């Protein structure tokens, strides 16, 4: 109980702050805060794959695209309830994630990263191939658009639910098996852990989270899904967010999500030579700085602060 108390206080503080935020912010800023919530979901999901089982993915933008198109197509063609489309995105991406996880069993480290990178490059091209169904270059428009406030509520409600789900999955036997696989595959097998089961399961869960994020992502762009918004850069942003977040900390994931969700908006107002690329220069420099100063991400920083405070 003594260990749980700070965690419960953290949750209440974060929840309270998020519930109060829309009353104090302008519409534009509520939109930005919703953006952070969307990245929160995606970063949380990638953390389960990369942080817990040690499988690197530079392809999560692809799962976001699948989730996003699920929402856009279902809403346009069938007028499906938008919240329902998020659940569908979760389910579809879970299955696709499992399927992608199967060939990924034969790959690890940088080779797995490259394979997922190929996914990030190729999946957004699919709408061009099946343009009748997926709208081609022109994209797909949902039948309804949502307000900043709706999006904010949806993004952070999804964040809260998926955070609790992740906590339930990771706190016991399954989470331990994930981390065991990451630390030593040989010892994990010798301890009776079925590598294929846990590795593909992590892929599935992680992809499902990205799917929900993608679904929200499309709603954030006025319900418009098009290939170019799910480019390679999106995949990289999620990976950067996960690296900035570090492992096993709610505050870390919040920091990582805020980093990738807010920095582009903040940095575009920073004057840098050649203002077209100013944004990228600031973003890139910030990534380098964080990685140099916080090799274990914000989670590592918070752990160090806690140890310091206790000593």
């Amino acid at each position, binding site marked *: 109980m003594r260990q749980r108390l700070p965690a419960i206080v953290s949750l209440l503080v974060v929840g309270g702050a998020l519930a109060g935020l829309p009353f104090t912010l302008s519409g534009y800023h509520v939109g930005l805060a919703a953006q952070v919530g969307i990245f929160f979901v995606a970063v949380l999901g990638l953390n389960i794959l990369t942080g817990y089982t040690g499988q690197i993915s530079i392809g999560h933008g692809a799962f976001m695209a699948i989730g996003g198109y699920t929402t856009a197509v279902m809403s346009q063609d069938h007028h499906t309830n938008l919240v329902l489309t998020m659940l569908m995105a979760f389910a579809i991406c879970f299955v696709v994630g499992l399927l992608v996880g199967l060939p990924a069993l034969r790959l690890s480290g940088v080779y797995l990263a490259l394979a997922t990178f190929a996914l990030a490059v190729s999946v957004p091209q699919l709408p061009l191939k099946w343009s009748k169904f997926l709208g081609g270059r022109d994209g797909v428009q949902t039948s309804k658009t949502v307000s900043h406030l709706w999006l904010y509520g949806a993004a952070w409600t999804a964040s809260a639910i998926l955070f609790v789900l992740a906590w339930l999955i990771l706190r*016991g*036997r399954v989470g*331990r*098996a994930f*981390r*065991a696989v*990451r*630390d*030593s595959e*040989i*010892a*994990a*097998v*010798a*301890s*009776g*852990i*079925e*590598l294929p089961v846990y590795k593909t399961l992590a892929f599935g869960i992680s992809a499902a989270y990205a799917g929900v994020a993608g679904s929200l992502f499309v709603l954030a762009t006025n319900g418009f899904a098009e290939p170019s918004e799910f480019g390679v850069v999106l995949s990289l942003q999620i990976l950067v967010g996960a690296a900035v977040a570090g492992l096993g900390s709610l505050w870390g994931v919040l920091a990582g999500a805020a980093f990738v969700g807010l920095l582009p908006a903040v940095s575009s107002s920073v004057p840098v030579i050649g203002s077209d690329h100013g944004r990228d220069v600031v973003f890139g420099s910030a990534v380098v700085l964080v990685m140099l100063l916080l090799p274990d991400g914000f989670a590592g920083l918070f752990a160090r602060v806690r140890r310091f405070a206790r000593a």
Partner: protein
Amino acid sequence: MPLLSLDSARLRFGGIVALDDVSLEVAEGSIVGVIGPNGAGKTTAFNAITRLYRLDSGDIVFDGRSLRRVRPSRVIRLGVARTFQNLELFPRLTVLENVLVGAHASSRLQRENEQQRLALETLADVGIAEHAARPAAGLPFGTLKRVELARALASRPRLLLLDEPAGGLNHEEVDELVGLIRRLRDERELTILLVEHHMRLVMDLCEQVHVLNFGRTIAAGPPADVQRDPAVIEAYLGGELAA
């Protein structure tokens, strides 16, 4: 019937014959040692038993059942647990979590706090309970050896394979280890097969000793007999001179 038997086990890596027609029996409740110069095939035999390697021919029978077609992750469920020569721990997990992973195969039906209690008891049993909450990374080598031992014990095995349990230990620690292994065998009704270079430990502890050289059995029997065997003396002295 022996609890474990290797029956004409043969395994080759390219041109090198790592196990050449090795036959070996481990009686239930006994402590058996496998010795031999470096590269003799001792660890290879362990890896074959735990199915990390696949035999080319011959068989491995545990409790009347062939392990040849058993998946590596199933071996521990049948009751065979092991430690590793150069440590295969989960460095970023705590000591307690390392031991809990050892109970993975049997933990599906147990409550988490029940598992934790059992894991802590196991840690206390091997004398490292005070390290439970520390990450494995950064602990001294001798302690990590005990963590691996506790992790193996947490699966409640019938057969325990110890790969160089005395490696890197000093004189007193080896004496302690001999006492510990004997006590664990008696209290937990274990059967133990161990690979070791430390001759005094082998002679003190083992009821049977199996000597391998270049993947081939050159002697087998009670420690006192094996020690006097000319082929064994030749293998060890030859190794010494060549080195």
